[in-house]
């Protein structure tokens, strides 16, 4: 029974990983940009939530209303003012710039908040759970996280398939030059994509901050989980990212059930095996281009 429980908890953890991964997948899909500061920007959101909790006195879940738009604006400005300039010179510049950004964010957080681990206190919802059987209880918070992840993916899917913005995003993704020729302002569209990407990772960062304690150096680990979810799921597939997150989540909880020391290792190994056997991931869209 505890194994079934591990799988259930893994599925729920997958919701969190999908939240972290969606933005990484989106920014890669639209502008072929692998943002190495992605995890650190999620941590930045968690710290911003911490600040608004202590300064305004709202709960971390309420702080989403403030922090997410703030991080989205940051994403727009970052893309428009910096990252757009790195996209023309090949593979290296965007990687080096976002890596520099990651180092800056980590050390700025370290200077401002010290290396102590912090936590976001969301009140009774953190421990409340729904008993399914005697031995399996599903926490409301992980359930909410998964629901939010699914909600965001549905919303993103609708935006991409039904709106003018979505059309522009898909056009810029398929062929940036051609999109420009038919009058799409790529620089703006890329910035909007980065705003959405960072908005989703901000939500992920805050939910993560409620779930566990966090520190200024945690960004890279979040980036790695997000990346593993994207690759397991398959490049270019939004729903694949959710499945990838869930597979990673289950691998970690089941590995942790074997021995706590193997929690992270099990996730990495499942990722590496899938990479070896099915390098395009489980749900790669036909024609999804590689970096």
């Amino acid at each position, binding site marked *: 029974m505890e194994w079934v429980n591990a799988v259930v908890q893994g599925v729920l953890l997958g919701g969190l990983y999908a939240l972290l991964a969606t933005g990484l997948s989106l920014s890669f899909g639209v502008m072929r940009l692998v943002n190495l500061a992605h995890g650190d920007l999620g941590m930045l959101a968690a710290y911003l939530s911490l600040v608004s909790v202590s300064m305004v006195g709202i709960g971390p879940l309420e702080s989403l209303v403030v922090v997410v738009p703030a991080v989205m604006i940051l994403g727009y400005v970052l893309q428009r003012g910096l990252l757009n300039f790195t996209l023309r010179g090949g593979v290296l510049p965007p990687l080096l710039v976002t890596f520099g950004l990651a180092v*800056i964010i980590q050390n700025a957080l370290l200077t401002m908040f010290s290396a102590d681990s912090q936590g976001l206190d969301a009140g009774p919802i953190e421990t409340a759970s729904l008993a399914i059987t005697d031995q399996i209880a599903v926490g409301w918070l992980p359930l909410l996280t998964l629901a939010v992840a699914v909600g965001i993916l549905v919303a993103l899917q609708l935006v991409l398939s039904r709106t003018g913005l979505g059309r522009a995003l898909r056009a810029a993704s398929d062929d940036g030059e051609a999109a420009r020729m038919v009058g799409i302002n790529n620089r703006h569209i890329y910035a909007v994509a980065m705003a959405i990407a960072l908005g989703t990772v901000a939500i992920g960062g805050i939910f993560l901050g409620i779930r566990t304690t966090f520190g200024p150096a945690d960004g890279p680990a979040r980036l790695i989980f997000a990346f593993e979810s994207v690759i397991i799921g398959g490049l270019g597939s939004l729903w694949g990212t959710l499945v990838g997150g869930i597979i990673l989540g289950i691998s970690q909880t089941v590995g942790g059930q074997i021995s706590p020391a193997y929690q992270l290792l099990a996730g990495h190994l499942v990722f590496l095996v899938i990479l070896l056997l099915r390098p395009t991931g489980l749900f790669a869209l036909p024609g999804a281009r590689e970096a």
Partner: protein
Amino acid sequence: MTAASQRVASRFRVQWATRTSRLATGLGVVLFAGLATLPAWGEGGTLRLLIEFFGLLAMAQMWNLLAGYGGLVSIGQQAFVGIGAYGLFIFTDLTSLPVLPAIACMAAGSVVIAIFTSLFAFRLRGGYFAIGTWVIAEVFRIVASNVRELGAGTGVSIASLVRMDATERLELTYWLALGVGFGSIVLVTLIMRSRLGLGLAAIHDSEVAAAGLGVNVLQTKRIVYVIASVGCAIAGSVLYLQLLRIQPVAAFSVDWTVKMIFIVVIGGLGRIEGPIIGAIVFIAMRELLADYGSAYLVALGLVMIVIVVLAPRGLWGLLTSRWSIALFAIRRRLVER
């Protein structure tokens, strides 16, 4: 070759050296000889600083070979720093070999490991290759943290080296570091003059065109990855001759790769001169600004971003933007006989 093209070809030959490169080589030899005598008259502190300098220089040369020449951005080279460190421990303490054979055995082992990890990493491209190499380094860190023979999470001290006479160890480490530092420069120069380097240059300009001309793109990149990784492992083991205490978190820390990237980007990506300038600037900045702690790292990150966006060829590129100076003879020129 037709008779006509043979006639034309016979009138030309390929020349490598320039006056600058001959001068630079001469100065390099003099500098190497001078630095080799340093243990006889230099202070211990200077030796220790230079050990770090040459170790980081070698790692940065290897990262530059990988990313600057090979186009493979790895943020997982710390895997091989850790392998160098633990390999040194395994072959000196557990199998009681002297230092040099121990490093040779470690290097041989890391060839196998690099080929094995390339099977995974080369399934990914571009930015995802970068994160993939990082995952691989994490796997090594977690494994080392769980193996009791390697000291698990707390790590190990290399006991046989701790017992060694301190002066003797310092001098040996210094000479090895000097050799690794200069050796990395010679190695990259030779690679760029070889068939492999020609293939790399072609791939750098256009992967498709290079493949069309018969360059085996994947194999060329894999060879470069293995060379750069083994070189990094050797440099890592030399640095750990000085550090002596190996902890999984520190040995497999991404900070190693952060340093390599800073050095290469600040000095000049894709130029042999780049890591040399970069390592000098990096060590100087750290000696001057280390007291500022993490604020100093924020500044380094900013400098890196500014350089990538505004001066993508680094400090060496800025210095040589007016004059075309090349200290290393890696460019083929056709001259009339």
